[in-house]
């Protein structure tokens, strides 16, 4: 059974803290993605990676960074958490596209609250 796991389901942090969100997939997927989801705004892409050590900015990268040292793991880092980063964070992975976009597999999400 294919799986994308995220390190925490719920997380509460304080303003200014450095926050690490971890995502691991066991499907040997090349692509990995980080989204945030807010009411009324849908899913917005923060960063994605299509290969180890490769990263590309998505639509809202400000205030975030990522790391992909191994194929199966993609980390999202909030350098200095702020209250406007309170959100649901979703990780996803997929095989690299060759023709059209491939099915994305999502993790269960991490609900982050920044106080």
């Amino acid at each position, binding site marked *: 059974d294919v799986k994308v796991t995220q390190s925490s389901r719920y997380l509460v942090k304080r303003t200014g803290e450095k926050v690490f969100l971890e995502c691991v997939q066991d499907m040997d997927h090349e692509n990995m993605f980080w989204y945030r989801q807010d009411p009324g705004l849908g899913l917005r*892409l923060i960063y994605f990676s299509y290969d180890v050590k490769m990263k590309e900015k998505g639509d809202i990268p400000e205030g975030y960074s990522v790391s992909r040292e191994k194929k199966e793991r993609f980390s999202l880092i909030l350098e200095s958490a702020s209250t406007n980063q309170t959100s649901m964070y979703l990780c996803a992975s997929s095989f690299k596209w060759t023709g059209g*976009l491939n099915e994305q597999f999502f993790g269960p999400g991490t609900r982050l609250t920044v106080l």
Partner: protein
Amino acid sequence: SQQGEEDPQALSIQEGENATMNCSYKTSINNLQWYRQNSGRGLVHLILIRSNEREKHSGRLRVTLDTSKKSSSLLITASRAADTASYFCATRGGYQKVTFGIGTKLQVIP
């Protein structure tokens, strides 16, 4: 505005009725996908329709695609309470990128 935009944003129906949601997109596509999200969870892939297909079925799901109008619709027949969820369409948003719409929140009342 977003590449994929679902319509309506919210839909409430009785169990047994059909539910139809629509998606419009802006750029050319190779394929379009629909996903479901149960409350507070990750998204789950439902169905993919290629740009050269006009209609596709999977169980109680029927998806249509009209590339001339840049639109797609998802029909759920004989809805059940367990179909209560948010539904998103997804299209290509750039190299290896996906764009999701805001979603349609479906409530099926038992």
